[in-house]
């Protein structure tokens, strides 16, 4: 055996340093360009994205009436299946706010609960909490949605997030006692269950899953720019309402019956 120490060389340290810099600068550059032009970055992957089927006419209706904003008579219907604990859904939530601000009453937006209960321990409770808010005041559902998505990092990993949800209900100014009764009851749970049943029937495999006029939005299109293109095309066509359109929201949601 040769017991002489290996010759000293700076080469490995130079290579290691170079790789470190390449990874750091390259990663940051990639991140910056992707953030600046999401549509361009996404378009490259369009061909490889798995396709989701269109909504069949006989699919279960989901919660009836649904959580809906925009105009019930709009020619473009956006239906999103989301999970309050899913980080990507929180990002899409911001996109949807931008879309909604741009199109207003020209679109109809429907939010469907699809909590991925196997991997998100608080997602189902979050959906029930939001639906209990809906039962008290349909418009406040969107405020609760805002609380849940914007504070997602706060409650996601809590062993029991329900006390935190209660704080959100207090913050948006609802009757907390009634909300607690609704959370414990079956109506909110049935609404969540109905949405999940619709999602499962449509083979929703993950969240967020978005349909525009009954047609699934592929992953590469899931950006503000990508969805704008689809919505604009549908508006240009003066498209017919989505297949199996959910009924319009009643004035008093508290009296709405669950469809289960």
């Amino acid at each position: 055996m040769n017991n002489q120490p290996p010759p000293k060389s700076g080469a490995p340290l130079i290579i290691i340093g170079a790789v470190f810099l390449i990874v750091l600068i390259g990663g940051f550059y990639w991140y910056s360009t992707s953030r600046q032009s999401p549509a361009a970055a996404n378009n490259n992957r369009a061909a490889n994205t798995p396709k989701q089927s269109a909504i069949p006419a006989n699919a279960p209706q989901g919660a009836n009436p649904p959580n809906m904003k925009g105009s019930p008579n709009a020619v473009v219907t956006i239906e999103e299946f989301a999970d309050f604990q899913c980080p990507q859904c929180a990002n899409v939530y911001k996109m949807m706010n931008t879309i909604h601000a741009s199109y207003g009453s020209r679109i109809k937006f429907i939010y469907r609960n699809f909590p991925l209960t196997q991997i998100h321990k608080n997602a189902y409770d979050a959906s029930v909490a939001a639906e209990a808010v809906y039962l008290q005041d349909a418009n406040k559902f969107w405020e609760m949605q805002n609380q849940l998505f914007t504070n997602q990092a706060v409650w996601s990993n809590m062993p029991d997030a329900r006390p935190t949800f209660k704080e959100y209900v207090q913050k948006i100014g609802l009757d907390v006692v009634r909300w607690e009764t609704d959370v414990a009851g079956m109506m909110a749970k049935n609404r969540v269950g109905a949405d999940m049943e619709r999602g499962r029937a449509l083979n929703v495999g993950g969240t967020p899953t978005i349909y525009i006029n009954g047609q699934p939005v592929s992953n590469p299109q899931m950006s503000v720019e990508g969805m704008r293109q689809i919505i604009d095309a549908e508006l240009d066509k003066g498209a017919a309402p989505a297949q199996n359109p959910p009924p319009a929201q009643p004035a008093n949601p508290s009296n709405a019956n669950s469809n289960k």
Partner: protein
Amino acid sequence: MTPEDDNRNEAIGRPRYARSALAASFVSLVGLADAVYLTVHHYTAEPVPCTVIAGCEQVLNSAYATLGGILTAIFGGAAEGIATSGIGEIPLAALGGLAYFVAFSLALLTAYGNTAMWKLFGIHMVLLAVFTGWLIYLQGFVIGAFCQFCLISAATTFTLLAIFLISKSPFRIRL
């Protein structure tokens, strides 16, 4: 390589484990590239395209995709402080990238003659392989979906471990 090859290599000035270490450094770069890809996608919030199998989104959006989720899964409520802090938001892919960069550095240092690093490389890979095994279990039995990029990472880890074990085996094949 055989022990005789090692002796011959050393006699001609080529460090022990040089070829194995060089191979390991190249394989580490594959894992590093995969981890960088997933990390960038995490921070840009772009969906990761699943071209071979479905389920990337389910895995990458799961609670286990971040350090906070992993700590909560291992330590339960005791990790709540860290899990809900900014540190808890660090994606697991970024930590994977760091692990592959360490593996790359150790392998390269070995290839250039610092053979003491090969033992550290081995310890590093054994720990990484155990953790990877647990992540595969999570995908298969807890999340119920597999992410192809996570599987590429797992394959990289096990390949690196195999390279190390083969280099230490008395029945080494000729590389």
